[in-house]
């Protein structure tokens, strides 16, 4: 058992030495059981920024209404009005900045790998999280696509397990085509494989 543990060391899953700033697997045509780390699709950055911009705009509108109320409805002192305005403005700028700066960090800090033991997803800019789901424990899989993702050809792979805390694990921001292929692979090799049940036709593209 000790040997087993040691050989595990040869495959660090969470070390800062392996930089993922560039996508070393951009030319990996088949994102299937290659056992290598994949990054998210680079299109995740513009897609996320778009979502961030929309969110920030909502903040801007609400903030503007707030500022208008402070200036024209309430009877605060001049200094207080300025302070509230600056605070609101600061918040809006912060949300805009976050919406712009966060996605590249996310892209650099998220990676995933499918191998014979299942799927591993590694993510987190500040709080790091590596989650490993053995293939035989996958209950079912979804590929979903939101309106913004559709524009950029992205999708979200959703892995469901029978667990309690992590019963649904999302991998957001990979190319939809890739997500579908990974799903098909995991369906074929994952659920019920070890229990010896024969799977019939596996579902084709649900789009």
């Amino acid at each position, binding site marked *: 058992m000790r040997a087993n543990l040691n050989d595990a060391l040869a495959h660090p*899953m969470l070390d800062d030495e392996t930089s993922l700033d560039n996508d070393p697997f951009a030319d990996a045509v088949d994102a299937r059981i290659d056992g290598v780390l994949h990054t998210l699709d680079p299109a995740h950055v513009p897609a996320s920024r778009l979502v961030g911009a929309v969110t920030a705009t909502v903040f801007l509108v609400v903030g503007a209404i707030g500022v208008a109320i402070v200036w024209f409805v309430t009877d605060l002192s001049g200094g207080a009005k300025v302070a509230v305005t600056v605070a609101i403005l600061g918040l809006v700028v912060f949300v805009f900045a976050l919406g712009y700066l966060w996605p590249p960090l996310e892209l650099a800090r998220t990676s995933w790998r499918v191998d014979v*033991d299942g799927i591993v997803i590694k993510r987190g800019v500040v709080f790091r999280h590596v989650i490993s789901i053995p293939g035989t424990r996958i209950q079912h899989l979804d590929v979903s696509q939101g309106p913004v993702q559709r524009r950029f050809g992205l999708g979200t792979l959703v892995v469901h397990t*029978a667990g*309690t805390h992590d019963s649904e694990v999302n991998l957001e921001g990979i190319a939809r085509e890739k997500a579908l292929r990974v799903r098909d692979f995991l369906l074929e090799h994952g659920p019920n494989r*070890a229990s010896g049940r024969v799977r019939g036709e596996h579902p084709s593209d649900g789009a």
Partner: protein
Amino acid sequence: MEPRDPHDVFGRDPFEDAEAATTPTGSHRLHPMSPVFEIGRSFFSLVVPGLVFVLLASGDSYELWYMLLFVPAAAVSLKRYLTLRYELSDDHLVVREGLVFRSVRHIPYDRIQNIDTVQNPLHRLLGVVEVRVETASGQEPEAVLRVLSVPRFMELRAGVFAERDDDEAQTPDDFVGPRAPRLPEPQPVPFFRMRPVDVVYFGLLSQKGIAVLSGLVFLLWEFNLWDRIEKRIPIDPERLSALFPAWEWLVIGVFIVALLQVVTVAWAFITLHDFHIVRSKDDLRTTCGLWTHQTATLPRHRIQFLSISEGLFPRLFGRISVKALTAGGDSTNDSQVSRKWLVPLVERAALDPIVREIQPDVAFTGLPWARVHPHARRRMIVKGAVVALVPTLLVARDAGFWAVPFFALLVLLVFVTATKRARRLAYAVTDSAVYVRDGVLTHARNAVRFSKIQSISLRQTPFDRRHRMATVSVDTAGPGGSDLTFRIPYLDVRDAMRFVRTVRRRVERTSFRW
């Protein structure tokens, strides 16, 4: 049995299978006494509160209007009895119900997590039993059969689990390791029987007496009886205190506390009377209760999470408790004692053979415990000290200088608990399961078998990163509302990575069957 009408997906009319009810393979109705219990339930929840109000209090109240709801509730109960049919097919339990809106529920036997029963004295008098069938689908039981005759229940249990026993016997990877079971002959001798002295301890530790007594006081207050009692005894407290010297008040206090203990122990003897566990093939069957008998049938291989814990006081008495979670039901439901604690309290020395009966490939002694990061204690102290700053600042605001000794005291406390916890915190990986031990006041040891692990996580906070540490956890299926998690904090990040990798491989080699 072909459906007569091809559009009637529910098959035959529920009223038309009188002949089928007599054959053991056909469908069965509930016991004819069922409406008594169903209506009884509505009676106690709707009519009794109203009656109590009429008798004890004056004025109108919503409880009186509630009484009117009794009529539709009783009608629903009667409908349920008249339309419910269940059937033991080859691999499904089929429950049909409904008159206008019909439902047919197919519950595959190999998805049934456990079968619980409740039998109060009235049930026993009539030879019937209330049965709950639970799957992993949520907090509500999949099927509640209120009520069945005892032979019918035995037939149900045998039918449900007979199929499964054969099936599971062929599962080599479910129980692994040198102690893999060879499915010995059914063994009707209980492998655990709670000793009366442990029942006393359990009662004293649970302190249910306070709940009973405060419930009583609440009732008196609710119905304004308190005032009447006060009027009956027209002595005001000042004169009362003049009447008796202080030491007599002390006696009264001691008397009340003693009374509470008696109530508490009596409660324990009533609920835990004759608590024992029998193993029949792969099923653990617990039975307990003096007046109301509760049984729980829990297939061993359905246990997702095993936890043993020693609270501060049990530890002083050398006693330990065992908790076993399946994915069924609701763990927050206190009414089934045996679901909350598989073994409520047992001597530490007697634990090993019991655990071996519960899970043949799990043992809590002789494990290759591995330590967490050597700096774990230091981090706990720093974290504790920072947290202690918050109450200290509050004290400083009101009491100024006194905040200094206050903070010193808190830090001392943090230091002691951190030292104790760091010494305790450890994990182990064997051929069949992962283990963790943790806790300062309550010592807990948790075990999850590889075949029950759903996913493995490694988390790092920025602080973890700075100290090259990580927290790993494994996720299992569990009952609703359960707060048990398998978590190893403050691991050296390299050990954490090894853990994830090793466990992930082992898990992939086993199959999961609920």
